[in-house]
């Protein structure tokens, strides 16, 4: 077994364990923490694929900013344990075997074709310079469009999260 494969399996195991734990935990803060673990392990997988810039951005943006926002909201709303609603028996009886069959089929189809997915060690596919050139030349229009999207999202978040009373007070003034 090569070092690459061992590392892939380690990070992959953390990913799957975190994802399953997200489903199993009842308290949202535990789910959030397992999602952070998934994101950290995914950053490791990106490093294996030679995409080190994406790995760093994954840590900064996903694990360091978006998930902080989630944790912040959970803390702010003081979210408690969720109430379980009992699913129907048919869903369990049909769903679990169906999921297993579907999963096996997908796995079989995927594993039949084997191309290599990982970059050779030391080969830098995604160094910041090349990505920057690609981003600001070929993908300039999508880049500008996403910046407008972000701007609209900021304004939307501000409008939604301000208390109604605060706006009325300002109008009255």
């Amino acid at each position, binding site marked *: 077994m090569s070092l690459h494969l061992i590392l892939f399996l380690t990070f992959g195991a953390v*990913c799957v364990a975190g994802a399953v734990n997200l489903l199993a935990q009842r308290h949202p803060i535990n789910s959030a923490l397992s999602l952070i673990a998934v994101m950290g392990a*995914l950053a490791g997988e990106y490093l294996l694929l030679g995409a080190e810039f*994406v790995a760093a951005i994954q840590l900064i943006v996903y694990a360091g*900013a978006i998930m902080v*926002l989630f944790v912040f909201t959970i803390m702010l*709303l003081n979210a408690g344990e969720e109430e379980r609603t009992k699913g129907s028996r048919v869903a369990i009886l049909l769903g679990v075997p169906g999921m297993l069959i579907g999963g096996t089929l*997908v796995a079989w189809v995927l594993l039949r074709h084997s191309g290599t997915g*990982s*970059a050779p060690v030391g080969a830098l596919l995604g160094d910041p310079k090349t990505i920057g050139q690609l981003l600001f030349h070929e993908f300039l229009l999508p880049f500008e469009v996403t910046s407008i999207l972000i701007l609209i999202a900021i304004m939307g*978040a501000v409008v939604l999260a301000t208390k109604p009373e605060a706006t009325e007070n300002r109008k009255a003034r």
Partner: protein
Amino acid sequence: MVPLSYYLLLSSILFACGVAGFLIKRNIITIFMSIELMLNGVNLSFVAFAAHWHRLSGQVFVFFVMVVAAAEAAVGLAIIISVYRTRETLNVDQVNLLKL
């Protein structure tokens, strides 16, 4: 060297977990997190394909997905906060009325 199919398999497992979480979870914040999990699974397949075809476009797409995820998280959490303000619950089963 790790075959591409392993990465795709991992990516599909993550995506499936995200879908399952979206369906079975009842807390609106956890449902949101399941969506993030799905996006992460898709990102992994993008990066794996980028390494497979030696094209960087896949990695650039991951940035766009992240930007969209950030915008979605900002607006989504703001909506959750305003829903909580009026309903005082985070359970999606109790947020099914159009009028209070």
